[in-house]
């Protein structure tokens, strides 16, 4: 479904990605793990077109998407829920969700809103509240719900568990699993490598801008190198 071939990305003179290649197949949950600055978020930014790549290619459903502006990439069916949630603080929960469905035809918006709210009943209770007044966990729910409003085929989540209470973290991961049952493909970036490898099918380990390990999540979980570096073994 998604194929990255040897992509390179620069932040000024710094090479953030040095030839990353990876693949995500339809219906999979794939996770990227790695330390701070390894290039996990940069990979997602390259895919969603927020940051232009300087080399390599990105293909989605057989078509090149590198070089397209972000709003066109959203239109192709890739939704990026970025790190730090980035709720539109002054907009109401409803407006946040409607913005998520900005590219939907007007006739489908109401129905999609209903479906997304059914998944996150907590948000319907707060529908008229300003997004910025929600708790951290609720904001993360809203961020995911907003990312789902455009009916994506591939959802990219960047650190959805960051800064949340453990009970909330469990809930977020549960949500991700249930999304897959709805037929969604998920590309997940997580600091919490243990949890991420537990719910994912496959994983890639990034180190200073390149993929150093990849494979089945179960295999990665017992790989001594992963255990030592990321699972605190």
């Amino acid at each position, binding site marked *: 479904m998604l194929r990255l071939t040897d992509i390179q990305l620069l932040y000024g003179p710094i090479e953030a990605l040095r030839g990353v290649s990876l693949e995500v197949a339809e219906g999979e949950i794939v996770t990227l793990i790695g330390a701070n600055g390894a290039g996990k978020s940069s990979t997602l930014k390259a895919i969603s077109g*927020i940051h232009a790549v300087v080399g390599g290619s990105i293909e989605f459903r057989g078509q090149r998407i590198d070089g397209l502006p972000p*709003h066109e990439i*959203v239109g192709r069916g890739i939704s990026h829920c970025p790190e730090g949630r*980035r709720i*539109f603080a002054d907009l109401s929960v409803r*407006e946040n969700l*409607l913005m998520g469905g*900005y590219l939907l035809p007007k006739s489908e918006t109401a129905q999609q809103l209903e479906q997304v709210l059914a998944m996150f009943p907590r948000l319907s209770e707060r529908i008229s509240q300003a997004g910025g007044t929600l708790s951290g966990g609720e904001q993360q729910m809203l961020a995911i719900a907003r990312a789902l409003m455009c009916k994506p085929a591939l959802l990219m989540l960047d650190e959805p568990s960051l800064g949340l209470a453990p009970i909330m973290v469990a809930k977020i991961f549960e949500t991700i699993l249930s999304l897959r049952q709805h037929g969604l493909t998920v590309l997940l970036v997580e600091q919490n490598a243990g949890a991420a490898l537990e719910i994912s099918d496959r994983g890639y380990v990034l180190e200073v801008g390149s993929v150093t390990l990849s494979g089945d999540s179960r295999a990665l979980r017992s790989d001594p190198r992963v255990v030592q570096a990321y699972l605190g073994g």
Partner: protein
Amino acid sequence: MFLQHLLNGITIGGSYALIALGYTLVYGVLKLINFAHGEIYMIGAYLGFILISLIPAMPPFLQGNVILMMMVVLIVAAAICALYGFYLEKICYRPLRGAPKLTPLISALGASIFLQNFVMISMGAKDQIFPQTIGMKTITLGGVSFTLLQLVIIFSSIALMALIYWFINRTRLGVAIKATSTDPYMASLVGINVDTVISVTFMAGSFLAACAGVMIGLYYGSINFTLGYLGGIKAFTAAVLGGIGNVPGAMVGGFLLGIIEALGAGYFSSEYKDVYAFFILIAVLVFRPAGLLGKGVNERA
């Protein structure tokens, strides 16, 4: 007497508010003070002048109906100014996106000088006198005298403000302007074409400024190519007074500034009419930089 000054203040304040909205909307999406905005307002006034001069050539059903005629003049002038706003952004600001903050500001000043001189050369440097065709008869009611034109101006300003308020809060594109103002990065991730939103914002602001230009031209009766400088700075003051970036703030600030100016001119000295606005600008910047309705100055990373 007080009511008289108040009414005059509201008339002029409505126009300040309309121009201030353009400053505030553009500041919202680009975090840029568009210092060429006053010139758009001036061009609006000139377009109004040209259109009203053409009235004798218009169909008779228009000539007989003050309100309909006023609407036609407003809409045509505003539509042309919206195009000015569109190209102003495209030519002077878009190529500088991502440049240091000072660069587009200098570009704004350049655009302002260019537009002023463009109008001076094409329309002449002398004052142009508006044909006094619309509702100039004075009506006196309970000691307050006003013209029909004044009522039309007040009503039109309020109607335009209601329209822009509805647009921003009730339409998808309007809410996208708000979303882009809070977080342009996230706005592009939900599929908003940020460039389109910025263009629309400039067009909406220019539309309102042009309406203000036509109304002020009619109200004062004469216009000059330097009109945009003072008018622009006063409206900018109104936007700062209300809280730059804040839409209701620009409306409140505009009316407030108009009223203060009218009261000051009426009770103290009309010679100092323009001083009050600058006094307020300095006072707001010193004592309440975020403005009356502003939420404190905190820049997002």
